[in-house]
């Protein structure tokens, strides 16, 4: 029961590699991949990758994408207590001006997103407005009257994080939509034994599919076992370690730990040379001093750069930045986080251009939830619902807004409370479907990735070509 076919394959491979008594199994892996590839139909010739940036804690989208015209700005600013005396409004004059093509109003990005202005101007950055978990399309009056299902446990970090990553909000899900996307797409990767998903941010619910298909790698340093050499004793110890992983156990936790360890050893033989090798021209694009998010995105760039070695035609990457739960002291905290995020995103975009894959790599953001527009005591904002997100890449129809920007009136038509909690007008399902379609999921397969997508009429939001 525990052994999915993929793990069986990996563990069988591990066994065969172990039987060779060699420390490196790289040659074996390539040989295996080659011979199997010959026996199968050809995978797609092009390369495509999705890169998810998860902003843990609930990024305040209200201070990310801000109305710039006077009346709209003043409504925003007054709800946020102004720009002084503990208020959390961003000064109108400091906004990075953007003019979405199909919207007849001026907007601004947070000042720390100045590095991304050129990407917006080049039409490679789009904003998806007021998107969030929905069970089905929902109006404010339906919400108030309780005549339709709401997502479970709105405003709770753990539940809303899970719903953004699962794209399922009417029950506790066991898999994430990135994992299910890989379940469906991985057949296009032919015989490659490498996991389709790489996380540079540890374990993430987003990546969990019905079939284990994720490798988590560190953002810096090496990725593999240390402490072995070619002596007889060392070789015997390594072989014993491999053999221990292949034992069956009546305890499912033992089996799970063995499977993860086995997958790690298999993956490291390919990935470690890539991430420890010289990538000088990529490195030079990324900010100095490095930040956690810049290191993670540089690591993704290195893996994309080695896509021929890895042999996958479709990949999903997961990176994250935490600290966005700005209940208090929001101005400084979010400013500091954006000062890390924006340059890292810009560097990553430039890296995809340098590698010639800008049109083949689409980067997007997710977060726990939006935050209240209304100021909370302590100079912050509380948990809310609908939020704005960014999509970046050469294939993005950028320079524009998608979805509908909410009316900022407290208690107004888009507020399910009196504190500025936006009722999403676009669902996570629709957001995910648009990205999944681009990666290659057919309309008929889409319910396998997004089981509730049928409840929403528009399954392509149009921000990708």
């Amino acid at each position: 029961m525990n052994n999915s076919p993929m793990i069986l394959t990996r563990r069988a491979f591990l066994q065969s590699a172990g039987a060779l008594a060699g420390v490196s199994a790289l040659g074996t892996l390539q040989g295996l991949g080659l011979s199997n590839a010959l026996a199968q139909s050809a995978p797609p010739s092009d390369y495509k990758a999705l890169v998810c940036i998860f902003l843990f804690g609930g990024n305040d989208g209200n201070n990310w994408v801000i109305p710039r015209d006077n009346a709209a700005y003043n409504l925003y600013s007054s709800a946020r207590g102004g720009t002084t005396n503990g208020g959390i409004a961003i000064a109108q004059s400091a906004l990075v001006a953007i003019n979405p093509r199909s919207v007849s109003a001026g907007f601004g990005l947070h000042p720390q997103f100045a590095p991304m202005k050129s990407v917006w101007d080049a039409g490679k950055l789009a904003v998806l407005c007021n998107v969030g978990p929905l069970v089905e399309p929902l109006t404010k009056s339906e919400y108030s009257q309780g005549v339709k299902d709401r997502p479970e446990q709105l405003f709770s970090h753990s539940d809303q994080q899970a719903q953004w990553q699962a794209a399922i909000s009417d029950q506790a899900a066991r898999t994430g939509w990135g994992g299910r996307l890989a379940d469906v797409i991985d057949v296009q990767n032919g015989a490659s034994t490498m996991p389709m998903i790489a996380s540079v941010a540890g374990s993430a619910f987003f990546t969990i599919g019905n079939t284990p298909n994720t490798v988590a790698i560190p953002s810096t340093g090496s990725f593999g076992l240390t402490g072995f050499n070619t002596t007889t004793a060392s070789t015997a110890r390594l072989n014993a370690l491999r053999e221990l992983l292949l034992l069956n156990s009546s305890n499912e936790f033992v089996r799970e730990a063995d499977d993860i360890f086995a997958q790690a050893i298999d993956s490291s033989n390919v990935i470690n040379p890539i991430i420890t090798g010289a990538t000088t021209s990529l490195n030079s694009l990324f900010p100095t001093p490095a930040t956690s998010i810049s290191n993670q995105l540089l690591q993704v760039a290195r893996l994309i750069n080695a896509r021929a070695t890895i042999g996958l035609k479709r990949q999903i990457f997961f990176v994250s930045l935490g600290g966005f739960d700005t209940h208090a002291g929001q101005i400084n905290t979010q400013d500091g986080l954006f000062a890390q995020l924006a340059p890292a995103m810009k560097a990553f975009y430039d890296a995809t251009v340098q590698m010639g894959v800008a049109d083949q790599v689409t980067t997007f953001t997710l977060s726990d939830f939006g935050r209240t527009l209304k100021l909370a005591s302590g100079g912050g904002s509380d948990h809310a619902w609908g939020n704005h997100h960014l999509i970046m890449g050469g294939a993005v129809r950028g320079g524009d807004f998608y979805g509908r920007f909410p009316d900022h009136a407290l208690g107004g038509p888009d507020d399910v409370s009196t504190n500025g909690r936006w009722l999403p007008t676009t669902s996570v399902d629709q957001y995910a479907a648009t990205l999944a379609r681009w990666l290659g999921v057919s309309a008929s397969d889409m319910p396998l990735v997004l089981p509730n997508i049928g409840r929403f009429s528009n399954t392509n939001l149009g921000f990708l070509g």
Partner: protein
Amino acid sequence: MRNTVRIFATLSVALAMQAGASSAATADAVEYYHAASNHYFLTASPGEVAFMDGSPNWRRTGASFKVWPTAADAPAGAVAACVYNAPVIGADVRFYSVDMGECDFLSTFDLASYGGVQFYAVPAVNGACANDLQPIRRGFFDNGQGNINFRYSTTLSAAQDSMDRGWNDNGVTLCVPGTSMARRADIIRLLRQATFGPTDELISRVEQLGINAWLAEQFVAPKSAYPDLPYVAFNRPDTCTGSCSRDNYTLFPVQVRFLQNAYTGQDQLRQRVAFALSQIIVTSGIEVNHPYGMARYQQILLDHAFGNYRDVLYHTTLSPVMGRFLDMANSNKPDVARGISANENFARELLQLFSVGLYDMNMDGTLKTNQAGEPIPTYSQTTVENFARVFTGWTYPPVGGGTATRNNGVNYEAPMQAVQSNHDTNAKTLLNGVVLPAGRTAEQDLNAALDNIFNHPNVPPFVARQLIQKLVGGSPSPAYVGRVAAVFANNGFFQRGDLRAVVQAILTDPEARGDLKATANYGHLVEPILLTTQMMRGLGGTSDGVYESRQLGSMAQSIFSAPSVFNFYPPDRKLPATGSTAPEFAILNTGTVFARANFINNIVMGNAIAADTSVTGATGTRIDWTPWQALAGNPAALVDKLAWTFTAGSLSDSARNIIITAVNAVSATDTLTRAKTAAYLVLNASQTQVER
């Protein structure tokens, strides 16, 4: 069944011989198997044993267990096991029971004849045996055509083997004397659950005292402490760099002390419970990076680990560390003029994570449902907003002492203080519709709200389940949760929230004690901090904790530095393949699995780690390999000793043989590498890293 050997003809002889047998404290009950009839037969009578050993068609299965041959040998609670023989219903059948109802029932069968008494045993209660007793499962076979048989097994695997072949499991029916190995395994498992790792000294102590007496000793053991660090300014002065910055503006001094206490402190259980509480009522160095603050916060959990959960809630609520972490400090009453709300952060997480959880629970932790079969939310957004107003008006104590009169800057030296003018004095509606009247003080509202929460019916199962998960296993049965929750609700003296009683209930429960558990989802992955302490303590290491504290981040468990109030891993994390709850797997991935293995490599295969001279009193990290090298000439003994310490005897024979082979590949003269090879492999085996 015609060919079945009729053994009961000898019964009277056997009974006569038994009467003359010498009276040892225990006797052996021996199992036999008859291949032609596929029947098992058990006897504790020396005369019958001699007869059976001489019967050509019966052979010993190799299984046996101890019994008390006389009432005088048996402990209080033991009763005579009635024997019934049924030699004429298709095969030779023997039935033992300590249940008078069963014995009476059998006596009504004409075909069953009473066979007297061979031994005494303790009846199982709810399918379980008391500490240190060996549970015996009864299997029952009935082909519906008159062929029946009974079998008595010490292990679930034997019972399972029978069930796989069409037998029914009657469950645990007898409790007999524990064998020394089973008892030792149970003690070591207890020490994995209740301490930071078994040591030879501790194992001997529990063997000597027994489990209950050892727990009693732990409950009063002298308490460990965190360093009493002085206040420092919130912002690091530019002149404070290097070790000044490390020792005053990172958690380093607290993390190191945590490990030192865990390695050598006598109050192992208190520390272990405090560590569990630190992962339920979470604060984190991600936001609170001043060690003088975190030391005081963690001291609260040590002080109250065996106290009352209501007190834990009170002191953590008013801790300025919590005040800063979840923004209760300086959260003022709503400012209508400026449109500012009370801060909801602490109120929400107090409810969701520290006390009642999201959905109404039954006493066993399972969710209640409404008529539509849906779970019932414990509270609403409106409830959170009301609690947020309860917790307004609190601020940091003034630096240097005194009484707060306005919002103060960060100071972690003492509990938060109330400033009444900043407190919302309007009425509030709490859980279950309880209304706090208007006009009360901040203290009155706070205590009334904590009472309201503490008395919610969810709190016993919510806290019981999480403590079980952190001490024993991730997927406890609802019955286990229910038994512990009942103790939380009432410790026997009508007191709610008695953590000492709760901990005792968790660790002495049949689901925690007894034989190796065969349930497929029993136990849990050992988290990095416990992997570290179990390795150091079990190998006999000496360390100041400096090196290890710096390595834990790469394993996703930097001490007291969870990524958020949701801890390092969530209590409801499920394995995708099976749906079993496995919290610690949330931080096991291909990256951290290497970090763990390479950390073990550095400690075990590497040389001693030198003291960091910038740390006062540093000793470095070293293992004394001498005792292990002494065993290196006998790889099996070496591996067995390690397997006892680190797996409570649960390392499988296959794993044992693989490791012995690797040890044998090392030159016999290189005893150090032999010892290290064995330790490396035992520690890296998933059978070790999953505690069960």
